[in-house]
């Protein structure tokens, strides 16, 4: 351990595909890369990432990505991964658990746990499939991950509120640290000339609850209801075979496209759209996709779920809709598609809202948190026991 350059270990589930060396393009992973880059480049500390993978060590984007071959158990818990990381993490100065559900049964000393949002609010979620004993166990462990680390970072107010309501008396262990967006890079275009087509951005991580099926159903409905609207599903799936299947389904729809672009091109791409559609149902914290889209001046149509509600004020910067229904989406999308002025006005408001989440503030907060945590001396040894 070099005193001058603290070492940070970050634990996540899947940053890269476990066997193929491609990045899993999810909101959480964008966040992780941003955070790692910030720690390395601006704090000058070193960062290693640990994740589920049989490959012991890889390099990605200037990061060492270390594999721990330990998939989740039948309860959806990552016990083995957690334990292996506990051991490996001892050699570092500071540890970050990038997901709430990775931080039990045991966190290391001097650790920060990040919540990516309330992940169990879907009826289909892993916790709802347990019996009372299993759910009690989940609850116990979730509380542990809040109470035991040096700090628990909540990125959205929904997480804060759920924790407060579920385990009153632990809210002081939380740190609300909202995400940030690069407002320079993600900017609205100089002008949005009137066009015949209305281009809708649908950023997707293809998580279970991001409403991909609603988007496809919407596309079917739009053929008749608003043929001028085209949907662009932007993202990359984890498995090639499922991506092919999805592509086939989408191929049959003339007004719908499915592709992904490298992160460097995202800002440029986002600017070409007229509105963003995030019909997420559940399991969402703050979405970096949402922030980026807003920073590019896109009004958003978002599902009332998790942290999205914090980003979207219905009727001001877009529409906040009850999730799960293609027809309600249709109504909102058609409204925005048909009314250019409304779209532009809401887009301006969206940009204004995004300006409340500047990357600089995010960096300042993280710097502060990391330095405080790093500076905390361990109470575990009596430094003066040997003096008189």
């Amino acid at each position, binding site marked *: 351990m070099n005193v001058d350059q603290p070492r940070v270990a970050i634990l996540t589930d899947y940053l890269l595909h476990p066997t193929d060396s491609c990045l899993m393009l999810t909101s959480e992973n964008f966040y992780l890369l941003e955070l790692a880059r910030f720690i390395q480049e601006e704090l000058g500390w070193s960062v290693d990432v640990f994740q589920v993978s049989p490959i012991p060590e890889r390099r990605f984007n200037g990061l060492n990505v270390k594999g721990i071959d330990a998939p989740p158990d039948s309860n959806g818990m990552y016990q083995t991964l957690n334990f292996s990381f506990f051991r490996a993490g001892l050699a570092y100065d500071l540890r970050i658990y990038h997901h709430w559900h990775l931080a039990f049964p045991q966190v290391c000393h001097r650790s920060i746990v990040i919540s990516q949002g309330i992940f169990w609010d879907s009826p289909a979620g892993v916790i*709802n499939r347990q*019996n009372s004993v299993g759910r009690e166990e989940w609850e116990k462990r979730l509380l542990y991950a809040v109470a035991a680390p040096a700090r628990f970072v909540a990125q959205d107010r929904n997480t804060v509120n759920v924790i407060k309501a579920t385990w009153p008396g632990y809210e002081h262990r939380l740190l609300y640290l909202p995400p940030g967006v690069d407002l320079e890079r993600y900017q609205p275009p100089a002008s949005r000339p009137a066009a015949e087509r209305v281009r809708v951005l649908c950023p997707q991580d293809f998580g279970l609850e991001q409403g991909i*099926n*609603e988007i*496809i*159903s919407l596309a079917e409905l739009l053929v008749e209801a608003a043929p001028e609207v085209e949907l662009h599903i932007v993202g990359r799936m984890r498995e090639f075979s499922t991506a092919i299947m999805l592509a086939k389904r989408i191929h049959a729809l003339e007004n719908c496209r499915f592709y992904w672009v490298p992160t460097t091109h995202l800002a440029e791409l986002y600017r070409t759209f007229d509105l963003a559609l995030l019909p997420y149902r559940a399991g969402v914290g703050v979405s970096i996709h949402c922030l980026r889209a807003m920073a590019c001046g896109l009004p958003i149509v978002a599902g009332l779920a998790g942290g999205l509600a914090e980003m979207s004020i219905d009727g001001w910067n877009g529409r906040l809709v009850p999730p*799960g229904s293609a*027809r309600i989406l249709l109504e909102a999308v058609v409204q925005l598609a048909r009314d250019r002025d409304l779209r532009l006005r809401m887009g301006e408001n969206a940009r204004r809202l995004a300006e409340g989440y500047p990357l600089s503030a995010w960096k300042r907060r993280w710097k502060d948190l990391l330095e405080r945590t790093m500076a905390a001396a361990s109470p575990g040894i009596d430094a003066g026991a040997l003096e008189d």
Partner: protein
Amino acid sequence: MGSDRRVAVLDCLFMLDHGRRLTYDGGNRYLVNLHKILVEMGYEPHVWQASGTTHEYEGIRIEGLPWGEGEYGCQPDLNLQFYERTSGFDRSIYMAPMLPFPRVRKHSVVISHGIFWDFPHEPWSSLSGPFKQEWLRRLHYALTAPDLLVSVDTNTLNWLRATWPGHETRQTYIPNFVDTALFFPGAPNPEKLVILYPRRLDPSRGIDEAKAAAEIMCRRYSNIEFHFVGRGINDSIEAEMHAWATAHEGCRYYWLPMHEMPDIFRRADIVLIPSKSCEGTSLSCLEAMAGGKTVVCGRVGGLTDLVIDGVNGCLTEVTTEALVQVLEHLVRHPDKRRRLGEQALETARGFSLANWKRRWAGALSAVWGDAE
């Protein structure tokens, strides 16, 4: 709700495409008739079920869905597949009580065919502790989360009210139906007195008590014939039943396709429905009543919604002694038999298909609010 008229219907095991064994269960007839109503009401029903293939049944196209592992009597993966496939639908119907777990769509209806967890051999009846609790939690969700629960009997609703009161406004009672055009009275065999058991060969249906009663009755009365008409869940049960019937004079065992059943009912004098549990407003019972027959029923589930003891049939405990006692009484009193049969026929008219359709139409327009 929009102008979309599509209705997503999830059925659990409409047709087993692997076993090739049609058990002529009430469920199929229920679906066929419900499908008809929906079409008549101007809806476009789309039916899914757990299956690897797509097939057609009586003009209904049925799409298969992967169903995953069963958990606590539920098929959560089937449910979620259904949810994802029907993202464009505004209305849905779950044909059986455990299907809505873990996630229901808006404007959904679930149908209960009667309490099925009152039989000690039913896997979820005998459990205790966290497993039972989890099963109950899922049952609770499945019956309370949809916008409407349609129950074929009052028994289910009463149990629910006693267990989880407060959901009554989203529950309705639509008893089963009988097609009186198919099932109508006819002259029985004048030489023999025929006692018919028209059910599956299942302990919960009282098959063992019926057999024991048959043995006693046939010993005592030479002019009696017992007909057991129904399938077992596997070949060996049926073979066993054949052997038993052959060994006992006056007892017969056979089974027939659906369309020949009305005739069977017409040829009987007394119909036995000796259910011990897991019973709604039994279709067999209604069919026997529509045939003007004297019915002898177990005092369980929805049967008490149909039969009032001594008025339009007999309700009894299902024990061999009790069955023998009731049957002997009926054998000795042809007048009583006739009177009960007439009242049964009268009763069955109230459960006509037309009434059933009217009730369903009313319920659906209440929950969907847009019947044409």
